[in-house]
């Protein structure tokens, strides 16, 4: 079980899914990669609430899928039920992704830095790693191609949120500032949703900035749990919005009745 959110009648995984869902809209055309339970729940929840026209390609393959539950792999064909098309990777997917017809993608990493760059390759030196991770997969591709990138992480601590990545597998805002623009890359990371807070990115420096704190979490705790200096907004820091009863019901009963999302915790 993940921790209860103080006074909200839900757990932190549910709060994260709802925060993710609310960042989606009717123009969202999204797809997902491996081990992406929070985003998959978020897309499905958004589509069943405020964004009925949201497009989601399950596993980046099954367009408009409507699975009865979420399986143990977010690349599994068990996620594809109800799809109106099975898109092929070589013929369809990369065309949709490269031309920003797909406009939304989410990734997490073993390490993330202040600019939303992500490492899923190695902990330690590349040639002789302390931990060899799976690899970046499509991160390096989609980080460069997709205008709206959402990051999430269920283990907000200084080992995950680091000043310096051991390897940059996927680009967020790169070196910050106008780095993406100079490389000719569209958009960039919008939010980073963690088990403690939601970050957005400062519009000029492109560093992570606390957009809202989850109930009961202090800014001091977030700073302590983050390996780089956390920016704060002017004025009082908002609290992450409370999920509605309806959102929680749909998430628990319809979107993810087996709580597959807890595999990320």
């Amino acid at each position, binding site marked *: 079980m993940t921790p209860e959110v103080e006074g909200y009648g839900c757990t932190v995984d549910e709060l994260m899914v709802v925060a993710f869902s609310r960042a989606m809209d009717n123009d969202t055309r999204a797809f997902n990669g491996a081990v992406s339970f929070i985003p998959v729940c978020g897309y499905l929840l958004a589509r069943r609430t405020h964004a009925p026209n949201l497009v989601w390609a399950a596993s980046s393959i099954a367009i408009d899928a409507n699975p009865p539950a979420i399986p143990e792999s*977010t690349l*599994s*064909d068990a996620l594809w039920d109800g799809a109106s098309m099975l898109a092929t990777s070589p013929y369809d997917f990369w065309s949709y992704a490269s031309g920003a017809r797909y406009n939304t993608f989410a990734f997490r990493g073993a390490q993330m830095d202040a600019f939303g760059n992500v490492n899923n390759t190695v902990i330690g030196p590349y040639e002789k*790693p302390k931990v*060899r991770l799976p690899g*970046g997969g499509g991160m390096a591709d989609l980080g460069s191609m997709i205008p709206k990138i959402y990051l999430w992480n269920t283990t907000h601590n200084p080992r995950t949120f680091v000043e310096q990545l051991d390897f940059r597998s996927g680009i967020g805002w790169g070196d910050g500032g106008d780095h993406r623009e100079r490389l000719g890359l569209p958009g960039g990371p919008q939010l980073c949703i963690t088990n403690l807070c939601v970050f957005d990115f400062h519009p000029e420096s492109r560093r992570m900035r606390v957009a809202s704190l989850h109930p009961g979490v202090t800014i001091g705790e977030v700073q302590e749990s983050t390996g780089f200096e956390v920016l704060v907004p002017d004025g009082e820091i908002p609290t992450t919005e409370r999920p509605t009863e309806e959102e929680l019901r749909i998430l628990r009963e319809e979107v993810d009745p087996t709580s597959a999302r807890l595999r990320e915790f």
Partner: protein
Amino acid sequence: MDKRVGIEQAVESIPDGATVALGGLSMNSAPMAYVREIVRQEKRDLTVVAIVAGMSVDWLIAGGCVKKVVSGLISFEGLGLAPTFRMGVQTGTVAVEEYSEDLLICRLRAQAWNLPFVPTKAGLGTDLIPLHEQAGTIRAEVDPATGEHYVACTRLPVDVALVHAHSADELGNVRVDPKLIWMDNEIVNAAERTFASVERYVDHADVVAEPHRTTYPQFMVSGVSLAEFGAYPSSCFPEYSHHTEFFQAYSAAASAPEEFAAFFASRVVGPETWVDFIQSCGGDEMVASLRRPSV
């Protein structure tokens, strides 16, 4: 020409030191019958190209067959890290040449299309660029005409592609039903030779009756091998799902190195034939439990 060939004979034709590309994606459609036979025949020093894979690469590393992995991602997904891959790289017995998915696809296309490079915007601004700077396999460049940044992906030569498919005729025309979803065609098109394991053989007359269903034409295919449930323990959409229990048992065994050697020798390498292997993994009952309702 009859292209039907046994799993054993197909694998016998792969020399030590070859570059072998594996089809499938993650938990899906990996050519496991061929992979197991590579382990059984104790092939050595292979360079394995696998865009996104898991158990296939892990078996080959466990079998001591691999010198280098050229890949975008190797894991068991929600079921954890690929344990032997991880340990092999951490202890330095296996090298990884990491790319992203699209960088690999573009390198395979440069090979298939006989071009010096194929450009993409994938990988810009990441550490994959400096990682390969010295080898020159991918290069960040700026188009002199437009000023646009791109990554030039050079040819990736492949000796043998191994894929799993649904059916083939005796001439080596191969079908993926209902259509190819994975990136297998990219490795087939790049490879000098391709072997496809298939769930069943069909008559050439059936292929001629429905030629729109052919995925790889016979001239692109060196051999086809019958391997029912040949992607096990990965899935073969839409016919059967991956086998969660096998992945779990494998990962559990891998947490204790000595136990794992025995597990791998008896469970994976031990059974004489592919049919024996499937029987030893639970046989008809297991097969029935993984079969999906017909689509």
